[in-house]
């Protein structure tokens, strides 16, 4: 009896230790690819990064040198357009959820739809925008009927809406009710109290939400393949096809030329540095409790 008990106790202790080791191993296995990806990116990307990368457009295939200036400008144009579409609508939706629709059925439906829309594959978003803007020529839709920077911006903008909307709502919910009551008690109209008091109090959090959405769409390739389409030359015209950094990385990565692979790595490094900066900033702002200072 006693030996059986001690055997069982030993078995339990061993399982416990085994699971601990397994969990640590799992953690290491997760961290390993991350380290590998970053290490390789820095090793490959930094060696091919130079001034020409930022100032020149790509050379014809097979020639060495050249850069991705057109893709950087293109990404800037696309992201500016996407932000102009996605951020106001997203923030508006978030304000509705947090200020007007708390607890209503409509708000729950909107919240649910936003979460579901967040999970729709980006390639499907590209197809829908292709079908809406690129393939049909309509008087009501500007720049429609052909590949254009505008259609790419629309696709990215739509993808930003659910993320911005949900983070705005979460941040507004953190603002204490006393702040709203104080604003209304001073006789401010409701719209003014929402915009200048509640939204302003939550603005660091809302900005971080916008940056998260921005970082997410900055790396999107799939919705741009058949909307922005790509362009080997410098372009900032919304009516014409435009290059984007992720799109150019894709085209160069699957090309057979070593010089283009080199540029693809450099482009990926630039992209990842931008995104990591954005994410760290977000983490810094939310972690330091900028919002907590408001209450």
């Amino acid at each position, binding site marked *: 009896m006693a030996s059986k008990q001690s055997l069982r106790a030993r078995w339990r202790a061993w399982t416990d230790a085994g699971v*601990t080791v397994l969990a640590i191993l799992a953690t290491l296995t997760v961290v390993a690819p991350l380290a590998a990806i970053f290490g390789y990116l820095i090793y490959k990307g930094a060696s091919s990064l130079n001034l020409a990368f930022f100032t020149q457009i790509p050379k014809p295939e097979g020639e060495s040198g050249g850069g991705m200036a057109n893709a950087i400008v293109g990404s800037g144009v696309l992201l500016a357009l996407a932000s102009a579409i996605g951020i106001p609508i997203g923030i508006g939706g978030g304000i509705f959820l947090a200020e007007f629709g708390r607890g209503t059925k409509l708000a729950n439906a909107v919240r649910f739809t936003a979460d579901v829309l967040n999970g729709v594959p980006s390639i499907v978003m590209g197809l829908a925008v292709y079908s809406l803007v690129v393939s049909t020529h309509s008087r009501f839709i500007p720049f429609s009927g052909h590949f254009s920077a505008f259609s790419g911006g629309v696709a990215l903008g739509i993808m930003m809406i659910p993320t911005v909307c949900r983070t705005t709502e979460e941040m507004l919910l953190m603002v204490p009710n006393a702040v709203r009551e104080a604003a209304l008690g001073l006789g401010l109209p409701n719209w003014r109290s929402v915009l200048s008091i509640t939204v302003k109090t939550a603005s660091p959090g809302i900005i971080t939400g916008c940056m998260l959405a921005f970082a997410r769409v*900055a790396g999107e390739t799939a919705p741009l393949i058949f909307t922005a389409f790509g362009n080997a030359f410098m372009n900032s015209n919304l009516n014409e096809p435009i290059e984007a950094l992720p799109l150019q990385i894709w085209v160069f990565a699957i090309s057979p030329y070593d010089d283009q692979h080199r540029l693809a790595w450099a482009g990926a490094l630039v992209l990842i540095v931008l995104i990591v900066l954005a994410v760290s900033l977000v983490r810094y702002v939310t972690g330091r409790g900028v919002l907590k200072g408001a209450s």
Partner: protein
Amino acid sequence: MSVEVKVPEIRVPRSLREQPTSSRTGKSPGDPIQEEQSPVRRFLLSRGNSALADRCFRWLMVLCAYSIFAIVGLIAWRLMVSSQLTWHEFGVGFFWKSFINPETHRPLYWDPVNGFFSAIPFIYGTLVSSFLALLIAVPLGVGLAIFLTEMCPRALRGSLAFLTELLAAIPSIVYGLWAFFVLVPLLREHVNPLLVSLLGWTGFFENDNPTGLGFLAGGVILAIMILPIISSLTREVMMAVPHSQREAVLALGATRWEMIRVGVLRNARIGIVGGIILGLGRALGETMAVTMVIGDAPEIHKSLLANGNSMASVIASEFSEAVSDMHRSALIEIGLALFLVTIVVNACAQLLVWAVTRGAPAQAR
């Protein structure tokens, strides 16, 4: 609660405005108290009548919220309209029919040149690569979450959580680039020969593809990409389990693993399943990384080392080169199927995760 209290308060200045003007002009024009109050009151009243502005603002915000419904509706409508051609030509058979090539006597699924289209090889590719990804990512993700919530020293916890967050922020194309130049050669040189020699007898690993691309490469890169989702959601639902549960199990003399199994995992299991389904939704729709490593062939093979293609990646790789309307329409119909499937999968996952994280605080109290 307090929102409803506020609303009448906004109307107060308006009612105030009517009372004093009538009293000032009618009753006591020369009252010193009234004259003294009036600049303050005038200042307050100069804020204006806010009823109209408030209503406009409210409707603007409601419009923004409705636009989210509109977007989902618009996507579904446009995809349906643009895939009419294939729908009329092939009907439901698009998703299961195949065709025997008269010359080679082998099944033919996808032949844009001769105008025959069927989505089965891509559905198969999506299912196989996503299943492989879940097989790899679920144990690792749950293990990571267990380590982070229950075992990790406090100093490490923040930075590890940040690292996994970073993993989620890396764009798909960068994963694809890395997989194409690092992971695929690694699989080709070291992992695949090992798998063939050890597990070749099962028929799942056949040494007939010298490129290293294929379902396995797609599954592995997908696993790396969905890991952060699974682990962060699992962590969230595990942290929502009240501490009293852990303490109760420990008080009965359980070891740490027994405490995790009985006290934490059993309570959080619905949320963990939700996280896994959410990861599945992501894996189904993931495009660029898979496109670069899955091998781009519209075929069905039992071997995991063979080339294939997934629903999302066939759209990415063929759409811009499609010349016939039928080809484009077929690709859009695949996109529509993908849209519907991911909506259903995400809705299920969302409901499960909500059920757990919304219910948990109530239990804690």
